[in-house]
């Protein structure tokens, strides 16, 4: 039998453990990742020349990070690793890539998608302002570049990552102005039994909160974000105290183009507190996010079936407990299939590889499968506790003021999106996108799609699952003119 061609997309925890399982079975998989280095999001590596230790970078997860990096480095020669290579399409049993050597199409017998996640965002009026970053992005600035996103940072949103990144900022010496959690503290109590599925993770959460509080940083629960305020355009300092010295000033361009939307960089954030009052926090940067969403575009292009998951209010690719998608030969693992965290990603990556091996006729030990399935089940229980403790604030979508931008890419407001729904009757995500352009811009709906669906659902008074999901289109990320010029090289 010729060696089967197995392609793994993603070299994070899921992809690395899948590659290891295949290499151990004597197969040399192709591992593709658009990143410069392996490790994925949680175990993202800093560039050459940086010297911070694993303990500094990954805290309590340092040993796991080291183990994963060592594992993948040790597979050199046994995997065909292609870094800095984007998979931009999947069709006709082939993966279409663009990398340092130009375009390629790679046929596969089995495809393991380990594409990871991006932040889930609920828009706040003013979130288009310079100085607003995704929560994950704020962590990348620190982890990969040793920078804070500003000199006074507010963390806004919800979920475990909110506390993790805020604590990492505090420890690294950044000035954190506040941690503003939209989840009411009381939501944690009914979630406790499920969160106890991972007692160590729960305890970690307690320690993170303690780190933040000891630094004198206020933590507010149950806030409703009202407004991200702006100062002088381009100002890097709170409340307009600074002057614009950005590129616009450097080249003397006028910065006073009038738009329908208030311009100017972040100067602070106003929230309604749990007791009904209003508070303003001055800051020059905001890290915002509400947990994560899986990157499912490639699964969609591979024609995998999706189903609505009411617990997270997202459409997710369907898979069996071992990671088999609805399409034969396609497997899904890690946070790219469902947000279950890094440890689960390692287990589900290995499990998906073992499922592929089984389907290709290789012997696989059933004890191994059973214990991995048990692991994943624990993470599923924990994740459902997290969803309960840090809920996606749907009511914010309905309450979003008409002049708030929903789509940052194309500058489309909640009012414009609502008008599309009422004027054209478009209630389905793709129709509403065609009329309003929400989801058509640079990010292809990654950062506005889920919130836009909630805005549409509220405006049309229908359940969000009836709005459906945005169809994915190739290329899954824009292929720049510069790179496309290398086609066929």
């Amino acid at each position, binding site marked *: 039998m010729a060696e089967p061609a197995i392609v793994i997309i993603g070299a994070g925890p899921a992809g690395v453990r899948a590659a290891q399982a295949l290499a151990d079975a004597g197969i040399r998989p192709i591992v593709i990742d658009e990143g410069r280095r392996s490790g994925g999001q949680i175990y993202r590596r800093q560039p050459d020349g940086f010297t911070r230790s694993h303990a500094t970078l990954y805290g309590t997860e340092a040993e796991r990070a080291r183990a994963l990096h060592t594992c993948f480095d040790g597979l050199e020669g046994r995997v065909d690793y292609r870094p800095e290579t984007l998979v931009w399409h999947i069709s006709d049993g082939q993966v279409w890539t663009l990398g340092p050597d130009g375009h390629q199409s790679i046929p596969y017998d089995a495809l393991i998608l380990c594409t990871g996640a991006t932040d889930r965002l609920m828009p706040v009026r003013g979130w288009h302002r310079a100085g607003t970053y995704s929560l994950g992005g704020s962590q990348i600035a620190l982890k990969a570049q040793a920078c804070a996103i500003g000199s006074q940072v507010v963390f806004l949103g919800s979920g475990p990552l909110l506390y993790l990144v805020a604590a990492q900022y505090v420890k690294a010496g950044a000035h954190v102005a506040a941690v503003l959690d939209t989840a009411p503290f009381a939501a944690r109590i009914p979630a406790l039994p499920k969160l106890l599925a991972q007692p160590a993770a729960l305890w970690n959460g307690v320690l993170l909160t303690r780190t933040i509080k000891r630094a004198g940083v206020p933590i507010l629960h149950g806030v409703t974000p009202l407004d991200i305020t702006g100062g002088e355009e381009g100002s890097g300092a709170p409340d307009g105290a600074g002057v614009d010295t950005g590129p616009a000033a450097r*080249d003397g361009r006028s910065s006073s183009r009038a738009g329908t939307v*208030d*311009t100017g960089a972040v100067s602070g954030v106003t929230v309604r507190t749990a007791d009904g009052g209003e508070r303003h926090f001055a800051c020059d940067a905001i890290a915002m996010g509400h947990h994560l969403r899986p990157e499912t575009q490639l699964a969609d292009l591979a024609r995998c079936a999706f189903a609505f998951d009411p617990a997270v209010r997202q459409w997710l690719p369907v898979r069996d407990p071992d990671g088999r998608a609805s399409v034969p030969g396609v497997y899904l693992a890690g946070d790219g299939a469902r947000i279950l965290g890094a440890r689960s990603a390692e287990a589900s990556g290995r499990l998906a590889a073992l499922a592929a091996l089984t389907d290709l006729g290789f012997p696989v030990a059933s004890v191994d499968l059973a214990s991995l399935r048990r692991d994943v089940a624990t993470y599923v229980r924990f994740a459902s506790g997290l969803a309960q403790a840090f809920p996606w604030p749907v009511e914010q979508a309905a309450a979003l003021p008409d002049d708030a931008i929903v789509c940052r890419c*194309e500058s489309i407001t909640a009012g414009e999106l609502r008008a599309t729904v009422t004027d054209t009757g478009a209630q389905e995500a793709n129709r509403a996108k065609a009329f309003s352009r929400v989801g058509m811009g640079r990010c292809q709906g990654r*950062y506005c799609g889920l919130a836009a669906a909630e805005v549409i659902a509220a405006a049309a008074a229908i359940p969000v699952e009836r709005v459906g999901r945005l169809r994915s289109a190739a290329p899954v990320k824009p292929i720049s003119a510069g790179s496309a010029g290398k086609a066929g090289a």
Partner: protein
Amino acid sequence: MTARFVRLAETDRPALTLHVDGAPVTALAGDTLMVALLTSGATLRQSEFGDGPRAGFCLMAACQDCWVWTEEGTKLRACSTLAESGQRIVTTEPDTTWPNQQ
């Protein structure tokens, strides 16, 4: 000069100089273009829709908010492109020249 990003560590790396909109900018080896621009200024570009300046968003090559260009017109994602000595970067898209018009 008001910078947006604040360096917290790793400042012993060798310095390098690139040009942004014609002006010299000092960065450190291993910086992304985004860090090079936002430790020397507060914004990356103006929104093409008139809603003010932008300074990137996701830092993981997913949102495409941080496009800048080489003077030759090659589009770059500032968050995932390393700064290099001698680079000449512009923050507005240069006029496209088509090969058949040269």
